[in-house]
Each structure stands twice: as structure tokens, then as C-alpha cells.
């Protein structure tokens, strides 16, 4: 049995008098990939941000050991004039590198991180000139360069074509196996969840299911989570 890394009980996020999510309780094991699913506005990103400490919450979020965290945020519109190059951005996270001094070592570390996500050719590109898919890879490299133990991915492939999506998750799965990463990701593609996630949480303002996808993603659980719109999904799958 794998060790429990994160134990969450009765998590509630309330902002401006409104309850965004409630009744979230689960244990996450070391090395697992957990997927949060649910319709738009169901609170997936909210839960992720609460776990990251970016939103105020009540209840318990207990990490069983001190962990370093990498985070790839939801795709955001990036200003095309943003001046940093990819390697400048990555060097910001290297403790041993001073920004103004371009050492061989820091350059190598940045290149290694980019290579691990298949993006070494982007090193000298400006961030503002990257395409959506390229930016996601660079953000993943930015998360990985500090050697995290836990990775949070918030719909990292939204807006990327299906092949790009597959490639991205294959990459994530390989990295998770190689480095023993524990991963929490938000997705609304159930195929991805079946294929890659060890655990899944169905969410719509509160938790409707938690467990292994093949066990807990029953038609009832999906209907509860998504309403009627998706009840035909299982038949088509």
C-alpha cells in the first residue's frame, strides 16, 4: 500500500459570502495521479487553488511530509510584448544562478528542463512569442526545474489539439513514473481520465465521487455531477 501524502477533510471554500465548494474529503497517495472532473463552474480550479494555498479555505489540508510543489496554471492569455526569453524565465527559479550572470551550469539546467518536456529549441524565444502549446510546455519545464515532488496541473491542454493533448499527457505520465511525482490535475476530458488517472474526483460544488475511475465513474455518479447532459456518455464510450 502506498503512503498517504495528502489528507483533506471537510474542505470548504467561501468567498464574499458565497460557498464555492464544500464537503471535500479525500486521501491522496504518493505517486498517484488524481484527476478532478466536473462541468464548467463546478469548482475544479477553486479546489486546486485552495489546496495550493492561493484561496482562503476552512477544513483541513494536511500534507504528511514537507513537499515542494510545481504548478502549471490554467491557460492564460499572454501579452505578446512580454520581454523575458524562455531561458531567462527558467533561470529565475534556479537558486544557484544569478540572473545577470550567464553561467554554463545554469544554462545547462535550463536546457535540461526544456529537453525533458521536448522544448529545447524554444530556449531563446521570447515568452510573448510562444504559441499556446509551446507556452504550456515551457510552464511545465518551469514547474519541473525546481525538482518538485507534487505537480498541480490546471487544464494544461485546454485549447490544444487532440494529438497535442495526448503527447502532453504521455509526457506527464512518463515524468510521473520517472521521478515518482504525485500529480493533481484538472481535466474535462473523461478519456484522459480513464487513460492516465489512478484516482478521480467528481466535483460539482461538492464532491460526488472519489476513487479509481473504473470503479467510481458510474452512470449515476456522472449524472449527479454533470446533470442530464452527459448521461449518454457511457453508451458511446
Amino acid at each position: 500500500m502506498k503512503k498517504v501524502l495528502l489528507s483533506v477533510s471537510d474542505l470548504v471554500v467561501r468567498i464574499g459570502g458565497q460557498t464555492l465548494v464544500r464537503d471535500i474529503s479525500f486521501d491522496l497517495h504518493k505517486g498517484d495521479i488524481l484527476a478532478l472532473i466536473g462541468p464548467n463552474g463546478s469548482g475544479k480550479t477553486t479546489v486546486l487553488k485552495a489546496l495550493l494555498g492561493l484561496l482562503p479555505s476552512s477544513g483541513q489540508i494536511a500534507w504528511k511530509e514537507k513537499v515542494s510543489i510545481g504548478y502549471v496554471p490554467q491557460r492564460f492569455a499572454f501579452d505578446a510584448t512580454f520581454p523575458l526569453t524562455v531561458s531567462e524565465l527558467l533561470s529565475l527559479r534556479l537558486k544557484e544562478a544569478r540572473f545577470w550572470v550567464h553561467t554554463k551550469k545554469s544554462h545547462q539546467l535550463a536546457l535540461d528542463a526544456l529537453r525533458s518536456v521536448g522544448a529545447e529549441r524554444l530556449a531563446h524565444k521570447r515568452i510573448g512569442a510562444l504559441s499556446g502549446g509551446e507556452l504550456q510546455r515551457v510552464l511545465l519545464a518551469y514547474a519541473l526545474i525546481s525538482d518538485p515532488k507534487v505537480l498541480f496541473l490546471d487544464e494544461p491542454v485546454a485549447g490544444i489539439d487532440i494529438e497535442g493533448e495526448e503527447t502532453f499527457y504521455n509526457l506527464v505520465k512518463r515524468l510521473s513514473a520517472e521521478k515518482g511525482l504525485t500529480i493533481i490535475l484538472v481535466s474535462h476530458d473523461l478519456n484522459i481520465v480513464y487513460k492516465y488517472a489512478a484516482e478521480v474526483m467528481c466535483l460539482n460544488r461538492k464532491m460526488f465521487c472519489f476513487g479509481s475511475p473504473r470503479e467510481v465513474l458510474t452512470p449515476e455518479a456522472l449524472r449527479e455531477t454533470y446533470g442530464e447532459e452527459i448521461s449518454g456518455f457511457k453508451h458511446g464510450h
Partner: protein
Amino acid sequence: MIVVGAVIGLTAAMLGVFVILRKLSYFPDALAHAALAGIALGLLLHINVVAGAAVFGLVMALGVAYLERRKILGLDTIIVIFFSTALALAVIIAEFLRVSEDDLMGYLFGDISKITDETFILSILVGLLAILIFIFKFKIWTKISFHEDLAAVEGIKVARENYIFMFLLALFVAVSLRVVGTILIGPLLVIPAATANNFRLGFKWMFLLGVLFSLAAVIFGILFSGIFEISVGPAVVLIAAAFFGFSLFFKR
């Protein structure tokens, strides 16, 4: 005078890069108008006008940062409300005091000949303070400019850092008012950094070029204002704008 100009130019370039990255280009203008109210109040109460300007600027920075965090309104809207209120206050106090037009023009467009020893020393101290803080905060502020949540996950106290940045900006605006003038401080912060970014050479170069353009604009601006007997502020901004126009040809 050139020394003060150089310190102001250097500080403006460093702060200006972050003003642009954070999309705060309106903010220095707003601070300058708050500072104008501070100056008017300083004249009314017979205290140092730079101190008055600094205090008013700080209060406004605090107010803007606070409301922005509460996410009640967009930053642009908050800034307009503060800045027009401050300007209205400044004008009414000035009318009440019967401040001469000449004095007022000096504060609006800069008059380096009227700079006092006190202001001279203050400018240099604030400049040095800004450079020092800057060296320590450079990586942190760059990370925040890139993505606030990513910075926060790394353990950076984003709100605190934003306050420090705005405070520094407010101090800078207050001490450079005498030289550049209220109306032209915003452009001095924004134009050299924007010019440097047009070359699209990455962040380090944006910085170095920004400092270069800013220093050149301020120093030549002061020299030309002496030679042609024109105000410093407009001379500085015209030179900076000329560099900007020139940089457009290099834009890739």
C-alpha cells in the same frame, strides 16, 4: 544638477521596466497628481513640499493597492477615481492659497533651477534606496510580473511585494517632481522602458537599454533646457519620445 538627473534617470528606468510589465502605466501619473495635492497641502501648512508629496503619494498607493486586492473595480477605474480626486483637491488648495501661476507651472512641468539642497539630498537618498531594494527584489518582482499565482505558490508574499513596489514608486515620484514636473513623470518612467522593449532582445537587454535611454533623455534634457531656456520636463520627454520613434524602425 546632472547628478540629480542621472540618479532620477537610473531609478526611472529600473522602476519603469516593472511599471510596463505590470501594466501599471497609468499609475505613476496618478501618483504624480496625488503628489501635487501633497505639495499644495505642504504650501498651505508650511511643511516641506516633497514630504507632503511623498505622504500623499504613499496614502494613494496604499488605497489603490488595497482596493485592487479587494477586486471591487478594475485597476484603471480605481486609478482614475483617486487621481481626479487628488487633482481637484490640489487645484482648490492652490486657488485658496493664490499660488502664482509661475510656481504652479514649475510643479507641473519641472523647474530644476528651484531645487533646494534638501530636495537634492532627498533625491539621491531615494535613488540609492531604490537601487538597493531593486537589487534584492529583482528576481521576485520579475516572477510576480510573470504570474502572481505561480509566485505565491513559491512562497512569495505577493501583496507585500506589491506594496513595497508602489511605495517605492510613490517616493520616486515625490522626489523627482521638482525636476521633471507632475505631468511628465509618467512618460519618463514608461517611455524609455517601452523603447527598450521594442528591440525584442530579451529581459536583460530591455533593462540595460532602458537605463541607457533614460539616462540619455534626462541628461540631454537638462543640458538642452539650460541652453535653450526651456523647461526640463518637456525637453526630457521629447528626447525620450524621439528615441522611441527611432526604436520603432528596429521593431521586429
